[in-house]
């Protein structure tokens, strides 16, 4: 290791006196390749919240309901209010100039703009 790296103590030491079980004891072959943690979705599934009374607050049921306000439609490119939408690309646009731009956009960019509001075509 370079001297300045050591001086800055950039790297976490592998042995720490205050630990009962060191990292290298937990994972003797280095970091395990296999996934041994659950994603939040799996954690929530395993919690079986539907077995508990619904009035008892839990991680799932404290989530906010969908908004009751009218959905705001803004131009995907400029951010102005968008009265129109282009049926070919599904992008919303504010005026004719933006429309010209929309039609000249390559598909990749169209999809990226759509992905911003989670409306892109996802291939599975």
């Amino acid at each position, binding site marked *: 290791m*370079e001297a300045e790296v050591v001086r800055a103590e950039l790297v976490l030491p592998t042995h720490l006196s205050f630990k009962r079980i060191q990292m290298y004891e937990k994972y003797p072959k280095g970091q395990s390749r296999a996934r041994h943690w659950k994603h939040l979705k799996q954690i929530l599934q*395993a919690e079986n919240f539907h077995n508990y009374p619904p009035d008892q607050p839990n991680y799932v049921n404290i989530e906010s309901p969908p908004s009751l306000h009218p959905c705001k439609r803004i131009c995907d490119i400029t951010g102005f209010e968008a009265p129109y939408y282009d049926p070919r690309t599904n992008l919303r646009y504010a005026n004719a100039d933006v429309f010209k731009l929309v039609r000249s956009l390559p598909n990749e960019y169209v999809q990226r703009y759509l992905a911003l509001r989670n409306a892109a075509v996802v291939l599975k």
Partner: protein
Amino acid sequence: MPFISQIERQTDYNLFPSSTPIVIDNGASYFRIGWAGESEPRIIFRNIVQRPRHKATGETVSIVGDHDPALLKYFDCTRSGPRSAFDNNVVYQFEIMEYILDFAFDRLGANGSQIDHPVLITECACNPVQSRSKMAELLFETYGVPSVAFGVDAAFSYIYNQRLGVCDKDGLALCPGFTTTHVIPFVDGEPVYKGCCRTNIGGYHVTDYLKQLLSLKYPHHMARFSWEKVEDLKTEHCYIAPDYSIEARLFQRGTKEAEDKTRVWQLPWTPPPTEVLPSEEEIARKAATKERLGQRLRDMAEAKRSNTGYASKQEIESAMVKVAQSLRKAKGEPKGEQADIEEKTDSSTSEKYSLINIPDNMLTPEQLKEKRRQVFLKTTTEGRQRAKQKRFEEELEQERKNQLEEERRLENPELYLEQMRAKYKELCEKVEQRKRLKTNGGHSNGNNFPGGVGRGERLNAAQRERMRLLTTAAFDRGKGEDSFGAKDEDWQLYKLMSKDNDDDDEGPDQDEAELARISSRLQEIDRTFVPKTDLGASQPASEVPRSRPLTREDFQIVLGIERFRCPEILFHPNLVGIDQAGLDEMAGVSMRRLLSKDEDLEKRLTRSILMTGGCCLFPGMKERLEAGIRMIRPCGAPIKVVRALNPVLDAWHGAAAYAANSQFQEQTFSRMDYYEKGEDWLRTYQVRYTL
């Protein structure tokens, strides 16, 4: 506000008795650790881990938090980006959490055989029990912590501000954090989770949105928009508009006010060296060289010409005859002798076709046969002659036209040239248009991504029409009564359907021939004329001057509407496709969920609304929230929104004050409790915030 990184190793760890709790605010963006009862956390760093490979030795190392980026040049970070232990606001990767805790305790100065202090650590509201138990397990098993307490960051912040008189015992805590936004109602100083609500949007989404928008707007400078830089831009320039549509309209009209609100980030740019105009003598020198080269070429051509000379007069004459003959042949005229013969035959037509004018019934069968042959011969020769005549006339006509044109040209050369050019252009466009139509009917709208859209795009107009006819014929039959064939026109359908009706080539051929003629003519009389070579290659090249020199403006990042468009997603999460209530609406949802039926309580709640969490730092947040909540509350209801003293650090402050309380010990649980009481107990475990 750049990233805070306060990671100096502490030396006074051993001065604290083992009863002093360690307080950790484990936020999704920042990790803060310090001692109970102190006023500031000791260590603050970003809650991320990188595991790059050291370039020299090749070993994989762990780097926690932010460090001097200059030092990272020794590491190969290409294969591992910064990783967080959080999914949403729940800790799920405890391996990463362990690295982070290692680093934190190490920097706090821990050097004993275990961490012999109670630990108070924050978690999200209604943390799933799996995450909570894993965290407890990690602290107990790996670090040997004697006892642990979990609390909610927003609650600690509220309590802290309540102690300092910023808000009341009853109130709402609005906490727009890094990955999620919470609203938690407080009654008598205790959080009521029944009325709590969470929207999965936060500062992370704002930064991400800004980053995406900028890199879509400036694809050439994409590399500039690192996460850290965009986060800086966000904290420095973003604000919350009092009303989004009004503010957006300001920008749309391009008013002075909007101009004042636009920020420009100038990227480093050095103007290209200006070209020095060539001096007089250099120009002269170049001209001389050119002249010399031209002279040489001319000389060479001259030499070539004189080399092919003839030796004698006879030779020249014979050559001339040969050339004339071949010329005539090329023109399609019959050879001289043949012409003579034909002339002769012409005169003797009457003898040759002797039988034609004699009626059939006066002839013998042999003669009849002969007569038929003669008739046939006569018609063919006559036809040939007619064609020849026609060709000759056409040539004459062409000659006349050329003459006329030449005259017109001589009359007024400029006008003529102008007309010629206009005609050329018109024809060019016509031909191009036709070609485009032929290759792709829907092409003309300029949206030409290759193979992007459905089947219709790939066929030309005629083919598409045929396809349509076929499908209607295939599927529409049998619907209602079948009247096909009742009219004669119906049968035209089959003709339209058949494949050979789309060779409509005569039109373009004519045009193209005319175009070729004009372009050759133009080439003759106009030296500056350059014919367009690739017709139909679409895109008139005049629009995009690609080789325009780059200017200062090309290296400017303009932050206009983005300044308030990005934070707007906190109030309208569906702008980024998250279908949940926004911040102001959440306050209403929270009160609805509380089901208090107690108007007094509701009034008390709205009279003390505390904003805490990093996203409260946006200017204009308070005014917008007040306006938004006023809209959903009954008229005249008291509304007061206050910002926490320090929206970012108050959770830790509150937790530190809380842990310093003498009764804190009762709120913790030990390793024994954890194993004896089991998971169900841990699920319902909750600290009392009012001690």
